[in-house]
């Protein structure tokens, strides 16, 4: 595939600070055994995009630990493969020492990487989105329509409330984009929402970056898409599978719970020839001890279950003690619960210990979050 991938690992981190306090958005754990970047990376390798740059910001140690050599995504390559692009700071005091804060500034900071690539196209992807999308079809359409930029969109129900964080794209019947923006005073209804994945010609992207530097542009959406959609050939690519954006802790909770729906689960994990890859941890299979009761839950390997688990998501290596009842909760890697614990609408980060007899409850709109390594 004649395309290089660029993944923004830190975009929108502030929107979900509980989970990104100690890690990048890319390395937020999701769906029992994955981290958010696994979806963006798997989409790329499953579409033949095997040269991928990952743009980093603060705190990318957990991300580097997760990615390793890239072997688990078959991206440990002599040609191409994964390149971690650390924040660019020069030794001289000047304006370029300011760490980027927007997508466009991030692209400016990696312009050497982009101009050093040989591929003709660039696929840009955020990693706060969860979907299984065929990028090769998107790339084919981009070439066939001779587009400058192709935006992945999904027709979704948008309420006034949710529109604040979404990028709504309007296009004519041929798919040519007419309006891009975050609309004020929007009515409830179906709109095409950008899935935060786009294809752009590499030379064109380089021009955009040079132009942005010259004019002091900072926002990809406002300064490039909104300004250019009337003059350039910007197209939409319609995606109809499941797509979720994680923009708050309650979003995170809802998207995680979406995985309990068999249709949604299939549209992410059971697409033929398009598996989702992640770092291999070599956990032993999950053990159910006599007396365990599990209903409507997703369970990762390495778990030991002696109590009751309902409508919940258990990450690798979680232990559920006797007479413990976990419902509507997300329990991350290596969390241990003692006996007679009751949890409802709780999210525990990694390595949490919940001692015997503790009762904790949140609400689905405001899940109770417990920090990494906490003992309760």
């Amino acid at each position, binding site marked *: 595939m004649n395309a290089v991938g660029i993944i923004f690992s830190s975009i929108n981190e502030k929107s979900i600070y509980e989970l990104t306090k100690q890690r990048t958005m890319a390395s937020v754990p999701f*769906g*029992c*055994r994955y981290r958010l970047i696994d979806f963006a990376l798997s989409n790329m390798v499953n579409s033949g995009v095997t040269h991928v740059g990952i743009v980093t910001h603060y705190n990318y140690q957990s991300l580097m630990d997760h990615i390793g050599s890239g*072997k688990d995504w078959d991206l440990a390559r002599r040609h191409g493969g994964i390149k971690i692009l650390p924040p660019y700071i020069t030794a001289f005091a000047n304006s370029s020492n300011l760490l980027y804060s927007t997508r466009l500034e991030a692209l400016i900071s990696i312009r050497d990487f982009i101009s050093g690539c040989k591929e003709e196209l660039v696929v840009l992807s955020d990693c706060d989105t969860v979907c299984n999308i065929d990028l090769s079809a998107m790339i084919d359409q981009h070439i066939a329509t001779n587009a400058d930029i192709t935006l992945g969109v999904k027709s979704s129900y948008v309420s006034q409330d949710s529109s604040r964080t979404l990028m709504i794209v309007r296009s004519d019947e041929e798919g040519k984009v007419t309006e891009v923006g975050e609309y004020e005073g929007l009515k409830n209804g179906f709109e095409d929402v950008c899935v935060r994945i786009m294809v752009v010609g590499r030379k064109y992207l380089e021009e955009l970056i040079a132009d942005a530097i010259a004019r002091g542009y900072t926002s990809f959406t406002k300064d490039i898409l909104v300004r250019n959609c009337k003059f350039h050939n910007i197209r939409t690519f319609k995606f109809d599978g499941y797509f979720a954006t994680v923009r708050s802790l309650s979003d995170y909770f809802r998207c995680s719970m979406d995985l*309990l729906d*068999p249709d949604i*689960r299939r549209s*992410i*994990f*059971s697409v033929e020839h398009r*598996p*989702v*890859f*992640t770092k*291999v941890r*070599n*956990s*032993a*299979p*999950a*053990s*159910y*001890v*006599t*007396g*365990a*009761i*599990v*209903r*409507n*839950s*997703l*369970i*990762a*390997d*390495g778990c*030991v279950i*002696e109590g009751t*688990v309902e409508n919940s*998501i258990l990450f690798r*290596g979680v232990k559920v003690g006797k007479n413990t009842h976990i419902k509507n909760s997300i329990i991350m890697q290596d969390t241990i619960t003692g006996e007679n614990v009751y949890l409802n609408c709780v999210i525990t980060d990694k390595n949490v210990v919940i001692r015997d007899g503790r009762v904790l409850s949140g609400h689905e709109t405001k899940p109770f979050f417990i920090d990494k390594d906490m003992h309760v």
Partner: protein
Amino acid sequence: MMTKKETVAMLLAGGQGSRLYLLTERIAKPAVPFGGKYRIIDFPLSNCINSGIDTVGVLTQYQPLALNGYIGNGQPWDLDRTFGGVTTLPPYQAQKRADWYKGTANAIYQNMQFIDKFDPEYVVILSGDHIYKMDYAEMIEAHKKNDADCTIAVFDVPLAEASRFGIMTTDENLRITEFAEKPKEPKSTKASMGVYVFSKDKLFSYLEADEADENSEKDFGKNIIPAMLNAGERLFAFEFSGYWKDVGTIDSLWEANMDLLGSRPALPLKDRSWRILSRNEAHPPHFVGSSAVISNSVITEGCEIYGTVINSVLSAGVVVEKGATVRDSVILGNVTVKADATVDYSVVDSDTVISKEATVGKSIAEAKGITLLGGGLTVPAGVSVPDGVICGKEMLAELSAKGGNV
């Protein structure tokens, strides 16, 4: 990077494992799946890397395709090395001879060149049909301390079963005085585990002598060890007391799987300090539906459970539909048990579909024995596969024709 290794491990993985019947129809015994997400060979390979042995030759012969693909470049076991790592060693044509491996000793003999490349002091000989977690480094340490020529790992077995094994008699320092292969009247209960440490030079000289002997069966247990004992070489036993199981039969394979169950399993695999590594496929986590009942079982990634699973071990991608029951069974990868079907006291090979209301096996209390159902089959709706049989394609066709009434 030092271009020398102290120890090289040679893993005998060419065996057919004919007592596993249908399971080894298309794959070699070491490639037989175990414990949900492993294959038998994961145990010796993981033991090697956990013991600090990073140079392993895997001798293949019978149906090597699945095994070769599985081992690949050794990356899952951290055995993809610039110098050393894992190497598969199939039989080959040489200038003066072209032969299959004729016995365990002959297999090593044919690969002396491979061993020599690393200039090792010690050679560890392993077999690919045992489930155990063992630190070979401790054994090599004992070998050095005893100034031994050969050290054989032994496992204490019940006297009644001792005649199924190679039995060592030792003095109080664990020096082996006598060795008897499957003796009728065993003199001790120290059974060979099929794990040997040899000093390389001694091994090579005995292999060459054995190769020259036309009457020899070219076997370690039958020829090399007795020859060394007769010549008065220093052979020592190394006592091992952890979990060890020969999984050469359907019954023992089933038992070893059952040893993973319970809150304190006989074979604990969750110990992060001695991980068993395996080649993982990309499966999502397993899903347990609202109607599911799961008790005392081990379940891995990619499974979807809507029915009842009791005392069983399920491999990746197994689907148990609503109303279906799986009890006291080992189900290998991607098997589907459809609605209201029952699987009892059975081993079901991969990719088989058990259709609605079909039954496989009988309850453990009533059954004559374990039922083995082959891979890639479809048991038609309502058909019963009886207890204690080995059911392949032909038998299933017969059963289906009769509507399952046997």
